[in-house]
């Protein structure tokens, strides 16, 4: 890649940060194997790099016990002479595959140390989202001329409820930086985190029905840069469920009670908050008086 001293940036240059799910608990029972999936993804990355000479692609792997950077298309060390026998992959991605292999082995070692009970099937989405946002923040610091960044989350593992706060923090930070988070969910159940992420940040969420054609879904929906999205019809969000779930029974509720100190959600009236331990007083009286005050204030009958 020639080093251009002064880059001419048109408005459709994009920086794509791909968060790849490598959770072995998910990939052990799916209809598509990981290597078939990888061939779709690598062809997609090639397509994105081919759309514009100045496009950049970063790949971060989301594992079960760790997350790491796998590939950065702006580094010139990618063009070594790697010999890969008989896989049919373009030599451009040889370093990506090698690093991915190292990452997966290391991830497996780390998860083996943990033990076999208590295996939640979720991957570390919050970790890779945070790393992606730090990288994008670095791109913003580099000056006025920079590609428009966006994040694409390719995930199949279900949501881990213990990551809720961290994932929401990342989503709000992405919203402030105006970075859309697209998500392509290839798992079985629905992922509420990814739906909310795409809705709040203005990205696209899609669940492909047939994983054999994953490459087609990726190139038609997720390869569009941010400027062209104004002219292209992309799948619209259908009814994102923003209802909360109560802390006591974990069921989704329409109406609930919120502790004014720690904002924990309960479905029925309690005497004491189980999260912060504050004792509640006089709540029924206050509620009745505030509602009746409002009725008195409204002048029309």
């Amino acid at each position, binding site marked *: 890649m020639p080093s251009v001293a002064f880059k001419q940036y048109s408005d459709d240059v994009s920086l794509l940060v791909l968060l790849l799910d490598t959770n072995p608990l998910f990939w052990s029972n799916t209809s598509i194997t990981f290597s078939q999936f990888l061939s779709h993804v690598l062809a997609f990355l090639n397509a994105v790099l081919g759309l514009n000479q100045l496009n950049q692609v970063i790949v971060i792997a989301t594992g079960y016990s*760790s*997350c*790491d950077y796998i590939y*950065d298309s702006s580094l010139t060390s990618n063009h070594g002479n790697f010999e890969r026998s008989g896989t049919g992959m373009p030599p451009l991605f040889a370093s990506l595959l090698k690093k991915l292999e190292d990452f997966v082995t290391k991830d497996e070692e*780390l998860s083996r140390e*943990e033990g076999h009970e208590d295996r939640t099937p979720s991957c*570390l989405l*919050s*970790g890779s989202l*945070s*790393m992606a*946002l*730090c*990288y994008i*923040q*670095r791109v913003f*610091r580099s000056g006025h001329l920079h590609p428009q960044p966006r994040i694409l989350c390719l995930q199949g593992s279900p949501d881990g*409820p*213990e990551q*809720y*706060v*961290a994932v*929401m*923090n*990342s989503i*709000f*930070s992405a919203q*402030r*930086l105006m970075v859309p988070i697209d998500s392509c969910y290839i798992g079985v159940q629905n992922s509420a985190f990814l739906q*909310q992420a795409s809705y*709040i940040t203005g990205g696209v969420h899609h669940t492909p029905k047939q994983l054999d054609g994953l490459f087609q879904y990726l190139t038609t929906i997720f390869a569009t840069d941010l400027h062209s999205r104004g002219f292209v019809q992309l799948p619209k969000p*259908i*009814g*994102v469920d*923003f*209802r*909360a*779930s109560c*802390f006591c029974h974990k069921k989704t509720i*329409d*109406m*609930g*009670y*919120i*502790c*004014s100190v*720690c*904002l924990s*959600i*309960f479905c029925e009236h309690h005497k004491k*908050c189980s999260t*912060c331990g*504050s*004792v509640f007083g006089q*709540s029924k009286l*206050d*509620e009745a008086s*505030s509602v009746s*005050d409002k*009725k008195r204030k409204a002048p029309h009958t």
Partner: protein
Amino acid sequence: MSNQRKRLTGEREDEDDEDAEGIGEWERAYVDDRSWEELQEDESGLLRPIDNSAIYHAQYRRRLRMLSAAAAGTRIQKGLIRYLYIVIDFSRAAAEMDFRPSRIAVMAKHVEAFIREFFDQNPLSQIGLVSIKNGVAHTLTDLGGSPETHIKALMGKLEALGDSSLQNALELVNEHLSQVPSYGHREVLILYSALCTCDPGDIMETIQKCKKSKLRCSVIGLSAEMFICKHLCQETGGLYSVAVDEVHLKDLLLEHAPPPPAIAEFAIANLIKMGFPQRAAEGSMAICSCHKEVKIGAGYMCPRCKARVCDLPTECTICGLTLVSSPHLARSYHHLFPIAPFDEVPAFSSLNDSRRTLGKSCFGCQQSLIGTGNKPGQCVTCRKCKHYFCLDCDIYIHESLHNCPGCESIHRPKSVSLMEE
């Protein structure tokens, strides 16, 4: 001659704010620019380039250290549901032009930015605006949760007249805030430009009344420090600061955006009934209760009375239920679970070996941590996950992201999770 020069440079004929004759437009930009004061000299008297990023980072770390010293390692309870009144002094002192173009314009601009930032960090809170003009306090807007109404009301009337009266403003705010539910934290932020206050009675009595009704008053002065403001803030537990220039004013204002540490007796803990409405189906038609018009499609339905509202968070106009969505609550969670500040890594070469094992680049953004000439550059490290981060990632993580990427990239078994959802 001055008129001729002005016409040559193509300026307008009105000479409202420049009283020195013969200054062209390009020169006006340099009138207040004292850039020679920013130069520094090293030991031999030669000019040294200013390292802005290091100064910025040192400032940020000082601020963080003050905050964490106050918290002293324990989780401080914060007042998350706030009812804040902003009192702006529109007396004749506000027309002074020591802030460019005038104190009013600067105050209005920064209050607008503050209102947006406030609702971003405290989505369940409400703001009201009060102005002091001619010695009388007027309510510009009532307590409400929509930033647009407040900003429109503020920008509507920007004129400075008459005297300023602190007591009238405090009495008015006290009256409004006495109707607020008991679980909310009552606060006042006063932007005061005058150097005196012309009151109809004893202001000390008013201050005692405010203290008794648990109202936390903070003042930001624009001219000089006044005893009465300092006394007011000390009695009620608020913050008093005086701005020296525009940038300082903005920083002081934005300091009031995150929730202050709460004094336990000030607000009684309560269970507040709230509704989580679902989005109305596409294509459904209903009359919305906020605008009284027919709307199609997007909107939310109150779970108790089924009235339609346009956006959240809001209070249902029919039944009075507070309607929020779960992301609004989630915006405040980072105040409850803050991350610990990172430790600075001293730049001694003895640490080079340990750093080599963990890699020479920042864990967050992969930027190289090696400074000029192969010496280790400045970096910080997280106490829990022991990863290294560059200074810019440190600032970004603590001010905006509120997640440590290193700690989030470690798998924790179920039993150790901080919060149960």
